[in-house]
């Protein structure tokens, strides 16, 4: 607001520097607000997880040991271990400081720090999820662009139909079917795990890739449809725009109009979605990792659920939520780079 009178300022250099400084301030405020919002969300998640896992169950120890022969002494022991005999405020404080130090306590079933377990299982998940997001985004965007450009054609209708059907497929079921056909059936791929025991050195790369094919196909199949539908409808919106007519009137080929004008504009809403989705895909991996015994966070989560191993589930709950928040933040930070209109 303050620089609205500047165009008439007599000394241009001065005006320029004042504008730059206020621009920097504006940018800092924008990024500050986004970062602050994320921290508030993160705090809310931490708070939720405390109440969800300690207050609602009444007695977490009983929930955890449900249906198991555990003596009264052992229960007391567990209670002391988790600090459940202390007042609530004190419990919350030690929980909070623990979480801030990335200390989620010890896993009940593995008897090891949750943080260590997460550290071990993080990379397989990042590998699987990362690869699947790259592939499904590329596939979804490509098919979405093609569908919008030839919308109503046979290939568009088939593509949309296939995407909607795959979107309706439960990922765990698809995984089982793929195993039945290609692993235990045809024997082309291993049924489970991430690598074979005997393989060493550089040989491990093709071996892991071989193990990853089926889980990857499953994840991509259930995820790409969303990208396709969003890209398709957002490109259809753009195609009706006036600037597309301008571009065509300039004498550009359709392919160039699409690549240089329509797609960059249509990408804006899509990119946000991809990032927001990325956080959720991590959780989507729970089922796929379980089905294929992929040694990642998802499988860890599943094993925690079946006990239930509350410290483990809680740690992963915070981690998965934090992933979504982080991706939202990244989307917020990335968006101004793509769209000059919202550039602070």
């Amino acid at each position: 607001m303050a620089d609205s009178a500047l165009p008439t300022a007599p000394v241009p250099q001065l005006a320029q520097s004042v504008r730059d400084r206020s621009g920097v301030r504006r940018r800092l405020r924008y990024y500050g607000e986004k970062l602050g919002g994320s921290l508030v969300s993160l705090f809310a998640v931490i708070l939720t997880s405390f109440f969800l896992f300690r207050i609602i169950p009444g007695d977490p120890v009983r929930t955890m040991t449900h249906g198991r022969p555990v003596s009264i002494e052992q229960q007391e022991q567990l209670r002391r271990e988790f600090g459940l005999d202390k007042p609530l405020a004190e419990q919350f404080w030690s929980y909070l400081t623990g979480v801030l130090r990335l200390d989620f306590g010890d896993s009940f079933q593995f008897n090891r720090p949750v943080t260590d377990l997460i550290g071990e299982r993080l990379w397989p998940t990042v590998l699987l999820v990362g690869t699947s997001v790259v592939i499904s985004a590329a596939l979804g965007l490509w098919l979405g662009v093609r569908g919008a450009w030839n919308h109503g054609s046979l290939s568009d209708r088939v593509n949309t139909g296939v995407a909607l059907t795959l979107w309706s497929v439960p990922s765990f079921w698809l995984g089982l079917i793929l195993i039945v056909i290609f692993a235990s059936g045809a024997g082309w791929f291993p049924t489970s795990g991430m690598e074979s025991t005997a393989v060493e050195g550089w040989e491990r790369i093709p071996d892991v890739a071989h193990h990853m094919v089926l889980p990857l196909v499953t994840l991509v199949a259930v995820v790409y449809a969303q990208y396709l539908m969003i890209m398709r409808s957002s490109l259809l919106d753009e195609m009706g725009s006036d600037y597309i007519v301008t571009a065509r009137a300039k004498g550009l080929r359709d392919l160039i109009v699409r690549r240089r004008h329509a797609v960059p504009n249509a990408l804006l809403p899509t990119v946000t979605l991809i990032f927001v989705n990325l956080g959720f895909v991590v959780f989507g991996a729970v089922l796929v990792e379980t089905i294929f015994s992929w040694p990642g966070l998802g499988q860890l989560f599943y094993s925690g659920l079946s006990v239930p191993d509350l410290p483990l589930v809680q740690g992963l709950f915070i981690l998965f939520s934090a992933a979504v928040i982080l991706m939202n933040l990244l989307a917020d930070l990335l968006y101004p780079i793509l769209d000059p209109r919202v550039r602070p």
Partner: protein
Amino acid sequence: MSLLEVDDLTVTYRTGGGDVPAVRGVSFALEAGQKLGLAGESGCGKSTMALALLRLLPKTARLTGEIRFDGEDILTMSWGRLRAVRWAGASIVFQGAMHSLNAVQRIGAQIAEPIRLHSKATEAEIRRKTGELLEHVGLPARRADAYPHELSGGQRQRVMIAMALACDPKLIVADEPTTALDVMIQAQILTLIESLVAEQDISLLMISHDLSVLADTCDRLAVMYAGRIVEEGPAAAVFGAARHPYGQALAAAFPRIGDPASRRRPQGLAGDPPDPAELPTGCAFHPRCPARLDHCDRVDPALWPTADDDRRAACVHVLPDEGLSLLTKEPA
């Protein structure tokens, strides 16, 4: 030979609910260096006309007739030739410059794009030309780095004009170039267009709903109603004393400022333009016509030379026998 000759052009949109005629047999000619104004209410087919000239309509539109530009028929031209004619031969200044510019590209890049496409200029030459064009339309050359949203409505329209001039076209089609701008800016933009067109001897086809704007700028005027030209002639004559009742109504709706006569004339026109899918029988204008005759719902007159030279109108009132001879030929 005229620069642009349109002969019996029809545009029909194919929709799920049947064919909708948007342009129904339009013919006109535009000489080199001439300025023609095309007026009409929204939905009369004038913007469809503008897009049809460079075959920019969606695939659902079917075109018949002939559009000869510089002796070549646009409608039968190959795609490659058509792309070469677009912008280099004829360029378009669109309405509402906000959405006609790509929001995520710098305006300099958007102006440079057709130059790069249609000439063999080097990057340095293109950059220089872009700067020149911007200064030509009254913007500093350094604004080339701006994005559309950083400019005002008037500035964006100037960018559109600079872009239209980029390849030195023979014809500029200006589709509502001043709509959505405030009055002062409107006047500036119109003056700019007029001076540039005169300076570079470019033909201008200007499309607007505002007859007074067209009368000020153009040599000749054509008035469209329901997909047809209903009146055509020298600008001053059509605006001052239209022969077609619709032309009269349109002229009255946009009085010239400071013209005392316009204050006393009744203004505006009752009713809405007809739905192109369900046109009235006979003359399409007859349901709204203040000078309707009994047989107007059965006669559809073509453009007819009026008593004076060089003017034509499509109304029973200019026909020698008020169109009754046409009536006898038509089966009831």
